[in-house]
């Protein structure tokens, strides 16, 4: 066990200290930061020149108009108070437009000047402010009592009730959950299949393996190697998990994202629920069985540059699983989805479809997981047993021939 520990430590540290691992970890975070940065900057710019200036014949008139517009939550720029100033600011793209407010013969008049037409929302806001102002003027001219004024100010009530949203929302949650899971597994598999095969192939070409096998059994070395690579993968998932949680915790503090979070809280919680469930176990087991297969592929070639060629069988299986699951994810009761959800190498892609859509019983789930665990253990045991023969056989030959030669050496 101590020697397996030494191999695990060596494999793990060598991988996580490499630049490629650091880049792999940082890429999604850098991507997210860039996304937030760009949206923040564009929103910042928008706030800056998306506002309207208010111009009026007198300061009192202007104050009253600004107050009415603020009540309607119109974005205002109060720096430009005269018509020439506003005109210049519009020319310099400092504001999106300006409103000239005046009252002629007891009638409130708002005139908008801008380079683009007003959005429906802003137009409504301006109109509402004008109505409010006009009403105040009318009330004052009519000299109404407060009771009469209150009666005239009474507005109708309108409420919107949307029913049956949970069905659609559930569908969206399921779709997003599955797509996230599928793409996450696909990219992890591509990364770790290539890494494992490359690592094993580069070692195989060297005589250091003879020195290592004179210190520990090839079986133990293989177990240590696979465990080390799995720990690297789990570290990556853990960092993503912690990073994701940190972003989730920070989101409410960022005004821009807080609204989004509030709006989609149910959806996000639903997706997280699907991700942090049995599906994650299928992802981990899927990565494990493919890592073992990739190790076998890597052990069949003598040069690291041939590792990509050697992993083709594993890549074909991944592609079949990925594309099949992508095509059939909306058909959880399809015969092939049911069949493939029990076949190792494919069940990691297809069983999550059935789990997310709740079309499989607990027994079915455990049966599939049991088959996958047994297949993974069986494959690991078998390859560990022939590993010494495969790695110590360094003659260049075809993959199948190399495999046959390897299993006859020991």
């Amino acid at each position, binding site marked *: 066990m101590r020697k397996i520990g030494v191999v695990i430590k060596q494999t793990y540290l060598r991988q996580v200290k490499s630049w490629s691992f650091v880049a792999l970890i940082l890429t999604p975070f850098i991507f997210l930061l860039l996304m937030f940065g760009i949206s923040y900057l564009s929103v910042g710019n928008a706030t800056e020149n998306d506002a309207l200036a208010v111009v009026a014949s007198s300061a009192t008139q202007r104050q009253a108009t600004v107050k009415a517009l603020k009540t309607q939550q119109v974005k205002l720029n109060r720096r430009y108070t005269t018509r020439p100033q506003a005109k210049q600011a519009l020319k310099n793209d400092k504001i999106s437009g300006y409103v000239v407010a005046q009252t002629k013969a007891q009638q409130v008049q708002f005139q908008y000047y801008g380079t683009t037409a007003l959005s429906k929302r802003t137009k409504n806001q301006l109109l509402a402010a004008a109505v409010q102002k006009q009403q105040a003027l009318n009330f004052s001219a009519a000299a109404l009592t407060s009771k009469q004024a209150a009666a005239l100010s009474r507005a109708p009530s309108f409420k919107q009730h949307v029913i049956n949203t949970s069905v659609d929302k559930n569908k969206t949650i399921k779709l997003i959950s599955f797509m996230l899971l599928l793409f996450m597994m696909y990219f992890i598999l591509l990364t770790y299949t290539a890494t494992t095969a490359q690592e094993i192939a580069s070692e195989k070409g060297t*005589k*250091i393996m003879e020195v290592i096998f004179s210190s520990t059994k090839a079986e133990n070395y293989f177990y240590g190697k696979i465990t080390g690579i799995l720990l690297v993968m789990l570290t990556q998932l853990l960092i993503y998990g912690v990073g994701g949680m940190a972003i989730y915790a920070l989101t409410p503090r960022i005004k821009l994202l807080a609204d989004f979070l509030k709006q989609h809280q149910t959806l996000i919680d639903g997706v997280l629920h699907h991700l942090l469930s049995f599906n994650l176990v299928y992802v981990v087991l899927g990565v494990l069985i493919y890592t073992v297969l990739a190790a076998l592929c890597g052990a069949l070639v003598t040069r690291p540059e041939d590792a990509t060629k050697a992993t083709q069988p594993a890549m074909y299986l991944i592609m079949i699983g990925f594309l099949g699951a992508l095509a059939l994810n909306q058909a959880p009761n399809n015969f092939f989805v049911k069949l493939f959800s029990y076949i190792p190498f494919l069940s990691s892609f297809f069983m999550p479809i059935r789990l997310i859509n709740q079309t499989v019983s607990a027994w079915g789930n455990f049966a599939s997981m049991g088959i996958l665990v047994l297949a993974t253990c069986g494959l690991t045991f078998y390859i560990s047993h022939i590993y010494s023969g495969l790695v*110590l056989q360094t003659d260049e030959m075809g993959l199948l021939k190399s495999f046959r030669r390897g299993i006859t050496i*020991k």
Partner: protein
Amino acid sequence: MLAIKQLSKQFGTKKVLNQIDFSVQPGRIVGLLGKNGAGKTTIFHSILNFIQYQGQIVWDDHQLTERDYDRIGYLPEERSLMTKLTVAQQVIYLANLKGMRTKVVKKILPDWLTALQVKGGAADKIASLSKGNQQKIQLICTLIHQPDLIILDEPFSGLDPLNTALLRNIILREKKRGAMILFSDHNMNNVENICDDIVLINQGQVRLKGEMIQIREQYGSTRIIVETPLKAAALKSLPHVCSVTPIRNRYRIIIEDEKYGPEIFAAVSGGQYIKAFDQQPPTLTEIFKQEVDQ
């Protein structure tokens, strides 16, 4: 003691080893000799359990298992290290696999680097060292855990005479410590200089084995090195002379039997002073050629 009994190995239809028998005693160096492809490396791989074989390999009356690995030091034929690691990282990793603690390795590594005159420090990357210095690091990895059985597959290949002498001294030091040393080499001078015993393998079979001096002597002192004014033709015409080979200002004469030595001496010297007359058994190279060519 390491005993190899009735060791046979077949790859497909090709029989590589056939009933190999020999042993290695503590504190002795055994040279395993043979042409390329004679099966030397296959014997090493069998001892290390890399391959399946027929026969028995017994160490102190028990079959070799993983538990014995910590007591073995193995230097393979081709040198290979993890070039991205530093010297210390590489030695610590391999020593850890032999059961040594990191703390102990760190403590004794500088002494080894000094003893082998490695040009480069413990913190240097393996890739930055010269080929010869990398070879020394690999030797340190082989010996640092003070193994009881040391297997060296052509340890001197690629080394200059100074480093060869340095390595020879280290091997002799290990012998003095009581280690069993089994090594192969194509340079018979190296073998003659440090081996106590030899095992000559040809076509998968043992052709010769035993103490080196005894083996040489069992061929008889039929080899005479002589410095004389006589011509080669005159020497060749002497009775019981098999062959005459000029070597610079001397001749190497092979005679039918060592008992004819005094007779040849009398004929060559003619009762006069001659500078050199040395009757000796054949060299290991000559024995090797004779046995392998047969």
